[in-house]
């Protein structure tokens, strides 16, 4: 029982990071209807930015800010130079999907050119574990969970209370209609991408801290899990995404710890992504999102 709660505690930490990443992804999807496959790279860049600044200044808060800013800028660049033009060009969602896959690949390789492909160690003293309620968390874990909650709350405040938030919701629901009411959809989308990038960049910093090391590829791996959470929660719906993230985060911690007689004992943590995808596939297959079956429902896309 104690062990189960411990695992649950770790699950919450993972879920927090995942929630940030997934919410950022969902923001981008909501406002453009595009699944940005290079989303993971925003996290990676955030991690590198944080590392560089931390090396120079020795300050974790400065690193966090650097990560967020770098993330925001790269996300904005993704929108302005690739996603936006493709949308205006009238490309189909699949084409843009492939394009962002290409962008992801380019960014990963550029990072390898400048930083090399080897693991970069990002070690911050996590502090001693403390008893927090029924869970055992260290200072780093607490920082992650608390900041995740704060950021999410701030985000919800922005979305529901500010003028920008209203515009964001309008564009997410119906781009054309929003345009007609005088909203500059492109500007709103760009700003949303910047905002999403801030969150994702920070998530990258936190993830790197938590794992202890990172490479140019680590964002992409995390993206696959992010995608699972986002799709599980309902692409485009922020609240659902959060819930999805929590569920997926917990499953990812719990399943490998299960004493399942598979591969001689416990499931290796590297199966994480495989599990995530199993969840993803199940979700996509059984959610009635207007999927096409000849006799039953309507065509989608």
């Amino acid at each position, binding site marked *: 029982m104690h062990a189960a709660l411990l695992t649950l505690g770790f699950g919450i930490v993972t879920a927090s990071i995942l929630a940030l990443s997934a919410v950022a992804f969902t923001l981008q999807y909501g406002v453009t209807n595009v699944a940005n496959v290079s989303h993971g790279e925003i996290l990676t860049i955030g991690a590198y930015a944080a590392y560089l600044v931390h090396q120079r200044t020795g300050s974790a808060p400065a690193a966090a800010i650097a990560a967020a800013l770098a993330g925001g800028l790269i996300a904005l660049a993704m929108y302005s130079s690739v996603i936006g033009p493709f949308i205006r060009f009238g490309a189909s969602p699949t084409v843009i999907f492939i394009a962002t896959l290409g962008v992801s690949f380019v960014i990963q390789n550029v990072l390898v050119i400048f930083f090399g492909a080897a693991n970069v160690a990002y070690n911050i003293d996590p502090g001693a574990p403390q008893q927090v309620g029924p869970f055992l968390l260290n200072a780093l874990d607490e920082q992650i969970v608390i900041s995740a909650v704060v950021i999410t709350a701030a985000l919800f405040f922005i979305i529901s209370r500010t003028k920008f938030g209203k515009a964001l919701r309008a564009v997410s629901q119906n781009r054309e209609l929003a345009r007609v009411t005088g909203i500059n959809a492109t500007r709103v989308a760009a700003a949303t991408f910047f905002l999403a990038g801030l969150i994702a960049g920070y998530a990258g910093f936190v993830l790197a801290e938590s794992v202890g090391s990172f490479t140019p590829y680590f964002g992409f791996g995390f993206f696959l899990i992010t995608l699972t959470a986002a799709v599980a929660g309902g692409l485009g719906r922020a609240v659902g995404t959060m819930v999805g993230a929590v569920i997926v985060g917990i499953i990812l911690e719990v399943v490998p710890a299960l004493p399942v007689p598979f591969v001689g004992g416990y499931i290796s943590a590297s199966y994480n992504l495989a599990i995530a995808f199993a969840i993803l596939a199940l979700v996509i297959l059984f959610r009635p999102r207007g999927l096409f079956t*000849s*006799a*039953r*429902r*309507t065509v989608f896309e």
Partner: protein
Amino acid sequence: MSRPTTGPALEVRGLSKHFGGVIAVDACSFEAPLGQVTGLIGPNGAGKSTAIDLVSGFKLADSGTVLFKGREIQGHPPHEISRLGLIRTFQSPREWPGLTVLENVVMARWDPGREGFLGAITGLRRAQRAKADDELAQARDILDEFGLAKLRNERAGNLSGGQKRLVEFARIRMAAPELVILDEPMGGVNPVLGERMAVAIEGFIAAGTSVIVVEHNLPFIERVTQHVIVMAQGTVIAEGPFESLRSNRDVVDAYLGEQVR
């Protein structure tokens, strides 16, 4: 395909479908006579399109039966219903845009023997080639008839709306089904093409295809149909020859009600 010489072309009994809380089709029943053009009209939201989707297999009904050639087809997937001899069009023209007009027509006919992978390899055999040449000739003739011969090598996606509709008609001619359901063929089409379409529909009848036309364009309905069914609020409220409906109180109310709204 065996063609029954008696009985209705299509028999719908008690068809119902609801979406969430909205009842789209409500215990709808009608018959489309064989060898005639039957119109299906009604104000917006009457459930005509949903009824067509249900009949053709693109949606699953909650209850009711649909009899085609004496067989229950409700619940079967669209391709099976199509292979039985019931083909439908859609509210917007659904040509195959990347294929040429000629290819669109040739591919309208489903040929079970030649559409498998093995058929691709054995297609070199003389008998197969002769069949293919035959088909090509037929397709050309049909395009000639529809005045589309000049456009036969054009990408179908480049055509105007009216031309696309004609290509759809050419496809129907090629497939020669027992029953064709036209879903708002005049939608977005220049009224000048109306007469051409009417002639095409008469061609269908002459070739042994019964026709059901869903339309908002009432003069067109008057021109082509022998029998008209009126739907409102998901069910049939009247039927008969067009002239008889003009003075039908219920029909007028249904349409007027729509205008006031």
